[in-house]
């Protein structure tokens, strides 16, 4: 049923000048799915996600978000749709003039349906959820470490309890323990809230533990789509190298046997 797909992309092409990034991509994400978007560096994963949220327009093809076609949508509808999405950008994209507290509180304040007295508690809870202590709240983004930026940005992405999460490399820059905690935390949240997520990642552990399915972007197309365990059966060379390579074997080998 189409209405149960949160995101639908049909025959999407993307070109930057003469650089063709996507060629005829058709991809849909079902409600409750955690889709891992995997591909080499520069294969166009970030661009694809930007097109899903409507930040960029594809050169050709159609994108539907929550069933609404993004190419002919009213600005107001798009804004309410985006309220239901949380985005973690690759570089964090924290507001540099705001403290961490203000960054996380900002979407809550803008949403306007939350009593101001609740916001403080919510912000500190979000920070605790991503593993940041209350002392970090007063820091400016420039005073944070790379991993802390990532966590603060995640706290902001989670602020409005989104139904749809876009995470661009959420665990890069985190130490392994933090990455593990992060995965557990998202798993818990997913059980509680049943959100849908698109996760761009190079982290094989995260693909195995968190993602319910994977889409692999190579040669400008989606070359594989399915459960993480099925990937090793795919004949495409990039998929083979990724999942049957040394590291892939280490992470996924134990599962197959």
């Amino acid at each position, binding site marked *: 049923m189409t209405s149960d797909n949160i995101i639908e992309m049909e025959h999407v092409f993307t070109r930057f000048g003469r650089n063709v990034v996507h060629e005829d991509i058709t991809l849909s994400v079902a409600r409750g799915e955690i889709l891992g978007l995997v591909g080499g560096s520069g294969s166009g994963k970030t661009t694809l996600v930007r097109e899903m949220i409507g930040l960029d327009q594809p050169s050709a093809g159609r994108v539907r978000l929550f069933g609404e076609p993004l190419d002919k949508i009213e600005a107001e509808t798009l804004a309410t749709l985006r309220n239901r999405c949380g985005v973690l950008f690759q570089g964090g994209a924290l507001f540099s003039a705001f403290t961490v507290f203000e960054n996380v509180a900002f979407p809550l304040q803008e949403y306007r349906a939350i009593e101001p007295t*609740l916001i403080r508690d919510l912000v500190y809870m979000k920070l605790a959820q991503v593993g940041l202590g209350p002392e970090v709240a007063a820091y400016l983004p420039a005073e944070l470490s790379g991993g802390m930026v990532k966590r603060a940005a995640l706290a902001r992405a989670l602020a409005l309890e989104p139904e749809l999460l876009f995470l661009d490399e959420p665990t890069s820059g985190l130490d392994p323990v933090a990455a593990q905690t992060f995965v557990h935390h998202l798993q818990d949240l997913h059980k509680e809230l049943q959100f849908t997520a698109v996760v761009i990642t190079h982290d094989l552990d995260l693909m195995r533990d968190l993602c319910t399915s994977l889409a692999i972007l190579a040669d400008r197309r989606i070359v594989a789509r399915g459960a993480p365990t099925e990937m090793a059966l795919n004949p495409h060379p990039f998929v083979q190298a990724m999942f049957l390579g040394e590291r892939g074997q280490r992470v996924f080998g134990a599962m197959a046997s």
Partner: protein
Amino acid sequence: MATAGHVEPAGYHTRRDERGRTVVVLTGQWTLRGIDGNADALASALREHARDNDKVVWDCREVRGLDNVGALVLWRLQGFAQGHAIEVRPEHAALCERWARREPPPEGGRSPGVRPLAVLSSLGQGLRSHALEFTTLIGCVVVDGGRLLRRPDQIPWKDISASIYEAGVRALGITALVGALVGIVMSYLSSLELRNFGAPSYIVNVLGLSIMRELGPLLAAILVAGRSGSAMAAELGVMRLTEELDALSAMGISRIVRLVLPNIVALAVALPLLVVWTDAIALFGGMVAAHITLGIDIPEFVHAIPSAVPVVDFVLGIVKGAVFGVVIALIACHFGLRIKPNTRSLGVETTNAVVTGISAVIFVDAVFAIGFRGIGLP
């Protein structure tokens, strides 16, 4: 399960159980969208029940979605968290557990209001740090400039020429426009007065002297302070934001040599040339206006200029241009390097660079006017 677009508002109803206790049954979506601004109303209604904690059972099993907002509303009720008689769905257990265990957030530090003495002392400190940093910048520029003179192969010619193009060539249009307009206005105003005195040919003296000695240099400098001063400060600020300054330092490349000096040299070269250009255009504008209002022929006007305006005044204008250029570039770089890696600081310091640059130009101009009052004036 929360369904997109279709929200069931949060609510509750009560009943009595067989042991005579009140059972509060929470229903609907206790989520951000389910509560939707009713948090206070729901909380005050529930607070009544939460008070007699011993005789109340909280039944959360019919809740069709619980998120942090919903959990927070519930856990802020006095007595809810301590109540042992809470029944929740297994998938909500972790969230409830987290809120039950949470530590209250720290008290926000109140800002201590405005104290006049503190304001004064911070003002003094600000001035001191500006003075210190500005002096340090000048010192670094002199030292690095001196070193470059001994090692001319290291002079960043490319940066200098790019900077000259950016600050000089691209400012030709706007300086010409403003210069021409001011020349025309000056000419019209003076011609009225001069005609009354019956000395129309003195228009050459009035225009020549005022434009070459004062207006040309000042106009060009103010325009450049606005254009290039802001650009230079913002460029340095964005480089701080994106850690490019650190990358440069890590490569062992001096930011003074590569970023500050080219700007100073470029303005010191470009601004005098712009002054000549502005002088010429302003005089041309004045000349055309004089031709129309006073009927002075253009060749006649041109021939009269050398005898009406001493060469010293023209040269003084050019020298002033060079000094203004150095001052503008130094101030822009000073404020640019003070920018902290956040967007607000970028805006504030860029504005400061322009405002201070223009004020400094006018101040230096006044110093020149006093210092050279005996020279060049007929």
